């Protein structure tokens, strides 16, 4: 069994860039896949991990070179396309990320699963149903005839796994197979992947999320800028990371990190995270004043109850984490609190004053005290505005976007969110994801609000960038005693950011309590399920 299924030595992939330049997406990468073992490939966006994965199926595109590229005993370096196709259809399979788009919405899934099989029409469909049954798809015969939009996210993911498994592959490459999935679903997929290794398949699992990979992988390689920075057994990587980048990545994972402890740190400087803790806690004055008080909010769209009788409150300077899976009603709740969607019933008070229901014109006086930050900041900026125009527009209450008098204040805002003032003349679309989110925070801070509603503010960011943004939010809260409503599906983030946590499912708030209690002693069965599904994370924080 120790015979490697795939052996890669000094794999490089390059693409033509602008003009005559060449972009080296992958540089001298070497690894082995062994039957019955899982190899984790970790890296952030642009690390070359997906290109590496696709190179194993001959789908990398670009210029591929390697000293050794041995797949199941075949030298795949100069393989003609027809032979690649044979390999792909049978011995090597891939599970793609983005389950919604990886199945053609126009074709029934049994075709998507089995159209590569060299069988008759009926036999193919039969095989597809069988494959679905093996991945425990409920009602496989019915589902086989449906198309991907008719399936839930979990079913789609199962279908994708069935698709990969139908040719009885010896090698499976799972590329970000759990990205954007809810906690429970992630758990499920990870379990299924683990199941593959027990069947003797050589598995490569690619992800940006170290925590998830650690659940399955026997060995891990860490990639950055197209190169492997560190490789080793999973335990070794987690417990005794040797490379700074690995350490940084580990530190950036918010799970189990107490409130206000910075996640992003220069590991080499050896800053002690605990050092900040007492000081920051000390600076927070205990107060009973409520920043936001929500009672009995409900909203129905058509015959779909989006939010059902939600009541919650946020203390001044405190953070309420609102957790729930997609479709649970989190965002609608946030919009109602912000006065963007009118609730059917219920009220919102801000510092004791009625905010909803109210006419927009009455509400406007209170608007300065509440701000918002969204998951996709780019969509919330006017594409015609530069950074300075966005900030000046916010500072001037929308009266102008050019007046020089606001420029100094705009620069101060940028400083607050740790952005260089050189970005003032640039446009949001020219900024990186992290910079955009900082800009969004800067804009939200312009009226000096007392409350920020943050709707999945870090979900689209890489772990290390997420860490810096979370740190920034912490800092701002410490400095300004701003109250946060922090909405996320990510338990690790909510654990790190919240004083109290509210759990939502199916439009209802099932459990509210202080963070520690919810995380460690959940009472509601849903919360218990959710917590059980979260990745167990046992690394030594003190390294």
């Amino acid at each position, binding site marked *: 069994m120790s015979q490697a299924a795939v052996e890669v030595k000094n794999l490089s992939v390059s693409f033509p860039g602008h003009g005559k330049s060449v972009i080296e997406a992958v540089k001298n990468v070497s690894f082995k896949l062994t039957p019955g073992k899982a190899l984790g490939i970790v890296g952030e966006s642009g690390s070359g991990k997906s290109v590496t994965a696709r190179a194993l199926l001959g789908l990398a595109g670009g210029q591929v070179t390697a000293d050794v590229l041995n797949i199941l005993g075949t030298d795949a370096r100069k393989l003609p396309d027809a032979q690649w196709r044979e390999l792909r259809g049978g011995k090597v399979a891939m599970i793609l990320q983005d389950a919604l788009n990886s199945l053609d919405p126009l074709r029934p899934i049994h075709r998507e699963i089995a159209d590569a099989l060299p069988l008759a029409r009926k036999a193919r469909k039969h095989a597809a149903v069988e494959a679905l049954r093996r991945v425990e798809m409920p009602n496989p015969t019915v589902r086989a005839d449906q198309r991907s939009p008719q399936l839930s996210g979990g079913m789609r993911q199962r279908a994708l796994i069935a698709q990969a498994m139908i040719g009885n592959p010896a090698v499976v490459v799972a590329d970000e197979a759990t990205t954007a999935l809810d906690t429970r679903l992630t758990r499920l997929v990870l379990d299924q992947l683990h199941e593959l290794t027990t069947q003797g398949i050589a598995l490569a699992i690619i992800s940006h999320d170290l925590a998830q990979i650690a659940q399955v992988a026997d060995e891990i390689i860490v990639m950055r800028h197209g190169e492997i920075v560190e490789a080793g057994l999973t335990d070794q990587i987690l417990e005794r990371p040797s490379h700074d980048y690995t350490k940084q990545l580990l530190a950036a994972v918010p799970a189990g990190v107490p409130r206000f402890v910075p996640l992003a740190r220069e590991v080499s400087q050896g800053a002690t995270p605990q050092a900040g803790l007492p000081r920051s806690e000390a600076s927070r004055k205990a107060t009973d004043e409520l920043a936001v008080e929500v009672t009995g909010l409900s909203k129905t769209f058509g015959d779909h109850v989006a939010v059902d009788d939600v009541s919650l409150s946020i203390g001044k300077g405190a953070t309420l984490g609102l957790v729930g899976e997609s479709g649970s009603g989190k965002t609608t709740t946030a919009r109602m609190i912000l006065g*963007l969607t009118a609730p059917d019933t219920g009220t919102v008070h801000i510092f004791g004053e009625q905010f909803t229901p109210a006419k*927009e014109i009455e509400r406007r006086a209170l608007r300065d005290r509440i701000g918002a930050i969204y998951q996709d900041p780019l969509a919330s900026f*006017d594409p015609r505005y530069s950074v300075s125009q966005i900030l000046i527009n916010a500072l001037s209450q*929308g*009266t102008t*976007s050019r007046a020089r008098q606001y420029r100094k204040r705009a620069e101060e805002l940028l400083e607050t969110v740790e952005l260089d003032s050189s970005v003032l003349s640039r446009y949001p679309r020219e900024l990186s994801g992290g910079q955009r989110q900082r800009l969004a925070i800067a804009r939200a801070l312009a009226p000096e609000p007392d409350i920020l509603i943050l709707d999945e503010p870090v979900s689209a960011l890489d772990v290390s960038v997420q860490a810096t943004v979370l740190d920034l939010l912490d800092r701002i809260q410490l400095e300004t005693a701003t109250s946060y409503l922090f909405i996320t599906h990510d338990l690790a983030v909510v654990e790190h950011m919240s004083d109290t946590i509210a759990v939502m499912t199916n439009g209802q708030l099932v459990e509210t309590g202080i963070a520690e209690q919810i995380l460690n002693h959940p009472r509601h069965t849903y919360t218990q399920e959710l917590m059980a599904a979260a990745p167990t994370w046992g690394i030594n924080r003190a390294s």
Partner: protein
Amino acid sequence: MTRTGKFLAGVFVALIAVAALFPSLLAPGSPLAVHPAEAFESPSLRHPFGTDESGRDIYTRVVHGTADSLTIGLAATGLGMGIAVVLGIITAFAPRWIDSVILRGLEVLYAIPTLLMALIIIAFTGPGTTPAIIAVGLSTAPGYARLIRTHLRTLVNSEMFDAATVLGHSTWRKVRNHLVPNTLTTLLALVTLGIGQAVIWASALSFLGLGTPPPAPEWGAMLASGRTYLHFAWWMTVFPGLAIVTVAAGATLLGRSVTRRST
């Protein structure tokens, strides 16, 4: 757009503008002067596009016709767009029931093919330049109204608008800061795209004898008189037709690049 593309687009717009505003710079002669003795001359150095049945220089007429054809195209598009903007604003901001009533109405009008609608309008108004403008304008309005409504709805429901609301900006400021500027680009693109089609529709009406009457050098009208002599004097048909194709295709390409730049 590439640099060459930009240059060509610039030259094209400049040429059309000169032809429309100062046609005499490009063609000093009179588009209406008849010279029976020089009728039906094929293209030559003296008459690059040949002459028509009354000895009028076709090149001169095509150049001078730019103003006529473009005016009709612009006026019709302007009319259609004006109606569409009003309807679009009403449907985008009004209560749901008004929106759905207008939307139904638009669907009704949309259900009738453009040229048929134009013909039906002409059946009421009788032929002529102004009726043609009204007919083309009215018959293109439903299509525009739907686009503008969608555009406005998207804007009003966008996170950009939400962000401004949360910042406490008044409706008027949101409209002024975001809605108007972002809509103007879209409108500009739509108008540019629309002019091309309006020129085609209007010339179709002239061709059918329902639009601008001769001897005005409107391209459709020129084609209508040219078709009589199709076998004898092909140049009477070819050049005004090329003018229509050039302007319509040029306007479309221009409109598309405006669209691309605004997104």
